[in-house]
């Protein structure tokens, strides 16, 4: 089967290896992942900041890049997937043509773990791993997309690694897009508290489905000098591909 991959601006700019891990994963499950040229950002930073015009600009661009066929769109971010699924139709509520286009792409978008579990049945594939892994449940993934079980199903299926749940896994890490920049003191305090929860599990690796959170958590790790690997779930899974 064929899918269109939306890398997200964070993966494209800061974490290209996550994009590559995602490609390896999808290929393993026989998925032909195409990467539409010219893709940029979904517009989430502008949208959460209240900048409607700029979010619409980004959204219109997304629609023009991804609206040319009807393949599923897969993206390694709960926050970006929710932007496309939940916010795009709302952004264009007063424009019937764009609203229709927005609803069309909204129906096609999958966050990576949703696609891996529901389409690829990847949780039955037998990933290999090692060490102790814990998981941070990001906000939009959990509360806007309602993707709660899929990442756990995948992580629990990793043979050789121990999955240890984190208390209050779905409490915000303090990233919040523009929040990280506008309220650095609170953002860092929240990330520090998240790191406390992570370290209490005894895990050597923390993973998640959103690079925004992982970036904020990685910064807390760096500031504290903690021994902890921070890895996107695509990287964790791709390392142990059966």
């Amino acid at each position, binding site marked *: 089967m064929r899918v269109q991959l939306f890398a997200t*601006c964070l993966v494209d700019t800061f974490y290209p290896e996550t994009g590559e891990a995602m490609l390896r994963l999808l290929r393993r499950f026989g998925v032909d992942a195409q990467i539409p040229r010219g893709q940029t950002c979904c517009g989430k930073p502008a949208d959460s900041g209240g900048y409607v015009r700029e979010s619409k600009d980004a959204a219109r661009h997304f629609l023009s890049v991804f609206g040319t066929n009807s393949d599923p769109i897969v993206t390694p971010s709960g926050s970006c997937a929710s932007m496309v699924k939940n916010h795009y139709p709302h952004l264009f509520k007063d424009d019937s043509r764009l609203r229709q286009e927005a609803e069309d792409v909204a129906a096609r978008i999958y966050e990576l773990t949703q696609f891996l579990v529901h389409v690829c049945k990847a949780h039955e594939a037998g990933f290999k791993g090692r060490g102790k892994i814990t998981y941070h449940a990001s906000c939009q993934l959990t509360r806007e997309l309602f993707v709660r079980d899929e990442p756990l199903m995948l992580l629990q299926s990793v043979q050789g690694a121990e999955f240890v749940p984190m208390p209050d896994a779905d409490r915000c890490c303090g990233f919040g897009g523009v929040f990280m920049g506008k*309220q650095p003191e609170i953002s860092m305090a929240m990330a520090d508290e998240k790191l406390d929860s992570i370290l209490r599990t005894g895990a050597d690796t923390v993973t998640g489905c959103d690079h925004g959170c992982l*970036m904020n958590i990685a910064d807390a790790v760096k500031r504290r000098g903690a021994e902890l690997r921070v890895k996107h779930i695509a990287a964790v899974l791709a390392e142990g591909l059966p």
Partner: protein
Amino acid sequence: MSQAIVPIDFRSNAATAVQDSLLRAALRNAADTFATKRAQAVASVPLDELREAASSIRAEVLSNLSSYLDRFIERASRAGAQVHRAADSAAARETIFSILEQHRVDKVVKSKSMVSEEIHLNDYLIANGIRVVETDLGEYIIQLASEHPSHIIVPAIHKDRRQVGKLFAEKLGCEYSDDPARLTKVAQQTLRREFLSASAGISGANFAVAESGSVVLFTNEGNGRMCTTLPRLHIVVLSIEKIIPSLADLPTFIRLLPRSATGQAITSYLSVITGPRKPGDRTGAEELHIVFVDNGRSSIVTGEYRDMLKCIRCGACLNACPVYRTVGGHAYGSTYPGPMGIILTVLLEGMPKAHPLLDATTLCGACGDVCPVKVPLPELLRRLRERRVEESFTPTIERAGIAAFGRAASFGGLFALGQSTARVLWPLMQKFIDPQTLGRLPKPAERSFHRRIIGVKIS
């Protein structure tokens, strides 16, 4: 002459608060306890159905608020209460003061009321020579400390028992103790004397029942009963949206409010007060006044933020909010803190003063999940952020940055150019921009994902 409006300095308040380890430990402890108790308590009721029912009762009231208010006033008056309407805080304060003045009241005992905080009632009465004694234990503590509530349900949530022990020893001259039972006993003994000697009681109300003209109070400490029944005069102060249509609607809120607020199946006391004491009644004030505060609510109810007025002040969104539990209520610099507080403060006090509060949220959505009356808190926060941009209350540099982002996001080539430029300029940018913000981002990758895969055959 009008004074320039000073915006609330949320960032600096918050920066101070996060450094206060005592405050943060007290907050974490309390907010987590309440959040856990709430989760356990709502598990024993059909939560989805109750929320739906409560939400639609509140929505029905708000869509016909003025006729429900008229009905309440008519029924309450028929029951013998005197009902007043105050357009704003000043009118409400004056109304209450003139009632007290007519009765030559020199001391009032007060049961917890957030609306009285909203209208700054205590300061006004004290300035006019009336002694005001808060009788809810938490309120009593913060009154002794000359502070304001930092939580709408747990006003002294920011203090631990050692701080309360020191405060009591200093202000009441008792022996230091940090045993909560001992401290409660001290407060009880002091307050009992106040109850018996006060000539008026002031309380808030959780609900006002239109059909019967009753006011309803949920309390735990018994002080509410004392304030509303011991003194000859009882004044209820409440905001206009607190109405529910009939007593038949009350059970829904009995099941939801205490569970959402403190995790209790029901509060220790539930008072339904209909008019003043009648011949044959064993308790009750001889004279009952009900003061409705508007403060812009009758205009909010006609606009796109009407849903905020569904709020029943349970405080669940405060306990669930990761920002609130990190900085506490005082950092908001407003009467109402937390997610509901941000929205209400912008609506009641205006964007020029309250716009910085719109940064006191990560839009994580936790508040929306716990709201018992389904106020779409995350959605309202987002909409207010949009309004803040429309009304130009965001910093110029941010607007310029987002405008550049919008253009770059619309063109693949421009976006790639932006990435390369950022990578090249990274060391320079890190030097000049707040190290706490940009310095926390990793360096852009040498080759973006796009560049890496160009020319590479996939699949």
